[in-house]
């Protein structure tokens, strides 16, 4: 069993209206050291071991559904979970 953490964010080249709104709010609270805010999604998947390498399966799922690669980037971390 694997525990997989997937992070999906808008690509650098794509304006993030939500992130911009949060950045302005932080500036209005005098956190002037903030130069950029990007808002994304965080997904946790539990994946059973199969014949296919888990990296390959996760990458495919990200490309096909979890991220829209036209506007989003993704990265993931895989941990092998110890049986309870």
């Amino acid at each position, binding site marked *: 069993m694997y525990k997989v953490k997937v992070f999906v964010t*808008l690509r650098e*080249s*794509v*304006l993030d*209206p*939500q992130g911009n*709104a949060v950045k302005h709010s932080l500036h209005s609270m005098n956190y002037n050291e903030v130069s950029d805010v990007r808002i994304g*999604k965080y997904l946790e998947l539990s994946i059973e071991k199969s014949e296919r390498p888990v990296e390959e399966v996760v990458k495919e799922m990200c490309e096909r*559904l*979890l991220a*829209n690669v*036209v*506007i989003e980037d993704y990265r993931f971390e895989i941990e092998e979970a110890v049986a309870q």
Partner: protein
Amino acid sequence: MKFAVIVFPGSNCDIDMYHAVKDELGCDVEYVWHDEKSLDGFDGILLPGGFSYGDYLRSGAIARFSHVMKEVIKAAEAGKPVLGVCNGFQILLEAGLLPGAMRRNESLKFICRPVQLKVENNQTMFSQGYEQDEVITIPVAHGEGNYYCDEVTLASLKENNQIVFTYHDVNPNGSLSNIAGITNKAGNVLGMMPHPERAVDELIGGADGLKLFQSIVKQWRESHVVNA
């Protein structure tokens, strides 16, 4: 000519679409549930607006993998007219039938009001009833209609005259190049954020959307009915 209105869990403009086709256009139309495995017998496919699957993950991302979408893709490849409005447009983008993607509106607000559109290309099966550069009024109602594509895709949309409608004067959502509606390269798949099915009767504020449906029927009759 017989139309299918595809219904997903969370669609909410399906009844308006049905009404527009049945009562205002005067054509045959049936609802088709998202897990149907055939679209045989339908000549035109309509994907209505709404919040399919609650917009979970991304607008249209989950609907895109429903059974019926395999058939919608087949119909599109066979050259049948496919119209996606609002959430229907988002589903067509996710399905790869149209290029690009949707972002949240620049204002981060849900917008719901009539907007003016310019007909950028009246040489499509969806827009031949309009004059070139005609300005029409159609309502929008969306939170994610901020169209985006990369520069190469935009250049190709322009080169192939795939941009059918743009926002006139005021861009309500921040979309790239004021894009409101685009077709695929073949010209038989149209996605648009504004709702033509909500503008089919003067009684409810305007009928500028009706010509879009009439255009589809005219094209179909010319190619399918002898002595039309």
